[in-house]
């Protein structure tokens, strides 16, 4: 029997929907976007409409990012006067890819024709995650648990939560600081090929990495993603409708989402390394009918360096414990065994809440990436990571 036998239902989503438009604003830190968080997302949404060759009035479903603004507000500004489906998936940074999957579900079920998924924020000039994660108990599902059982002991922000996982992985599997650094260096190297990346023109060496200040051991400054202002959006429609639009459609071969257990509490997990992606990835690959080895590139949600290693393992690109070796020696750089985040990722491009990973996958599969193009890219994976390890994954093809 195959490792991932086909199950009834897998064919409901496979190759039923396509991404037909992407839009991105510029990203910045100082002095900030100068726009509201709704305004900046609308800018990206309009760019996605233009890319797809669609009018706002054709959008009949909107899946908004949690805690930013409501689908209804976007609909009102974009002229979506036939909105049929509005929802938000509360998975933090895993929401955009989980929304991509829900968009495919909505299209496959006939609940929507054109689905808009926007996300964007003033992550630099507005409220910082490091602040809201400890003060807004409603910002994540485990907010009250965090307030009552973590914050009093000084565990207050995402890099600290995830550092607990990284430290344990280093102990069990011998993962090294240099291997974490290899992730940071790969993202930075890719950013040198992307003029839109905020770290373009700012190369990073291993010596620079190791000399950067410790934030929360084992995470140094360069293990941590950027905090930026900016927004991104994409549009999903049916395969049939996609054929009538201007851009080369990108097919959703497989998509899934999953939760760690428990999802609202990070300390008491019997299997400390199991995350949402551990559940989601086998479903997505089974649906797509491919193996991880068939993938030409992967855009992995890189909030912090170890999360890339962890997701590569849990998605099945290597065995658990082998992620450190997988990322070494240029393994995840262009030309390596699996190019990861060719745009530079959250670490060196911008913090697009993970939606930029989808946009870059679309550009790769359209062959629009110029210097950083993965040669003959046919299949790409995108993952999302959020809250205490929520996960999502999409397998895309040209």
């Amino acid at each position: 029997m195959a490792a991932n036998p086909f199950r009834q239902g897998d064919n409901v989503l496979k190759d039923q929907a396509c991404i037909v438009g992407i839009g991105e604003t510029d990203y910045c830190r100082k002095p900030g976007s100068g726009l509201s968080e709704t305004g900046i997302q609308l800018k990206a949404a309009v760019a996605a409409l233009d890319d797809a060759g669609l009018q706002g009035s054709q959008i009949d479903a909107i899946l908004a990012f949690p805690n930013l603004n409501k689908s209804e507000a976007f609909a009102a500004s974009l002229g979506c006067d036939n909105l049929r489906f509005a929802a938000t998936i509360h998975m933090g940074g895993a929401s955009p890819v989980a929304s991509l999957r829900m968009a495919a579900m909505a299209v496959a079920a006939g609940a929507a024709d054109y689905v808009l998924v926007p996300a964007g924020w003033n992550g630099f000039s507005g409220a910082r995650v490091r602040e809201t994660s400890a003060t807004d108990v409603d910002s994540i599902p485990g907010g009250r648990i965090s307030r009552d059982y973590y914050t009093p002991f000084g565990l207050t922000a995402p890099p600290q939560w995830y550092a607990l996982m990284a430290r344990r992985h280093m102990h069990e599997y011998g993962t090294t600081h240099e291997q974490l650094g290899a992730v940071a260096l790969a993202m930075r190297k890719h950013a040198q090929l992307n003029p839109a990346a905020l770290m373009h023109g700012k190369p990073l060496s291993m010596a620079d990495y190791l000399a950067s200040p410790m934030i929360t051991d084992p995470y140094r400054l360069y293990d941590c993603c950027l905090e930026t202002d900016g927004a991104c959006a994409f549009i999903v429609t049916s395969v049939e409708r996609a054929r009538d639009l201007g851009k080369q459609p990108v097919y959703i071969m497989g998509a899934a989402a999953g939760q760690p257990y428990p999802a609202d509490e990070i300390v008491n997990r019997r299997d400390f390394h199991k995350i949402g992606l551990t559940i989601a990835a086998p479903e997505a690959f089974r649906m797509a009918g491919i193996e991880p080895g068939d993938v030409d590139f992967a855009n992995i949600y890189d909030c912090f360096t170890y999360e890339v290693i962890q997701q590569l393992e849990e998605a099945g690109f290597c065995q658990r414990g082998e992620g450190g070796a997988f990322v070494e020696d240029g393994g995840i750089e262009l030309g390596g065994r699996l190019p990861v985040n060719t745009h530079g990722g959250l670490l060196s491009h911008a913090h697009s809440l993970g939606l930029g990973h989808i946009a870059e996958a679309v550009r790769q599969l359209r062959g629009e990436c110029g210097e950083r193009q993965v040669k003959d890219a046919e299949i790409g994976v995108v993952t999302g990571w959020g809250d205490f390890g929520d996960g999502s994954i999409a397998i895309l093809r040209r």
Partner: protein
Amino acid sequence: MSDYTKPLPEMEGLTGEFYDFCKQGELRFQQCADCGEFRHVPREVCAHCNSFDWQWAASSGRGRVYTWTVVERALHPDFMDATPLAPVVVELEEGVRLLTNLVNVAPQDLVMDMPVEVEFRAVTDTVTLPLFRAV
């Protein structure tokens, strides 16, 4: 004690009960009356057998260091003067894990599986935190 400025838990519901035991010098976790499973953080139902019957059972207070991080740069204003600071996960003999701090180990001296035992610290008139010491 009143000059304590760090964040405190909300003393309500089951969380209030957990910390009230700490104030009495007792570390107690919920234990399922039907299947015997210990659990933390407090929840209404046993996730193992879905029983609503449970009691606050005494912990031995002994455990081992499971993982930690050393916060060198505080990301919360109330901890700016407290770094370096190590939030530590301790795995108790009962099998549950607790996020805490160690009172007698400098962050750079932490070792995986280090044996520890609970030591209570009254930080305000109402809140006592369960901290641990290496033994």
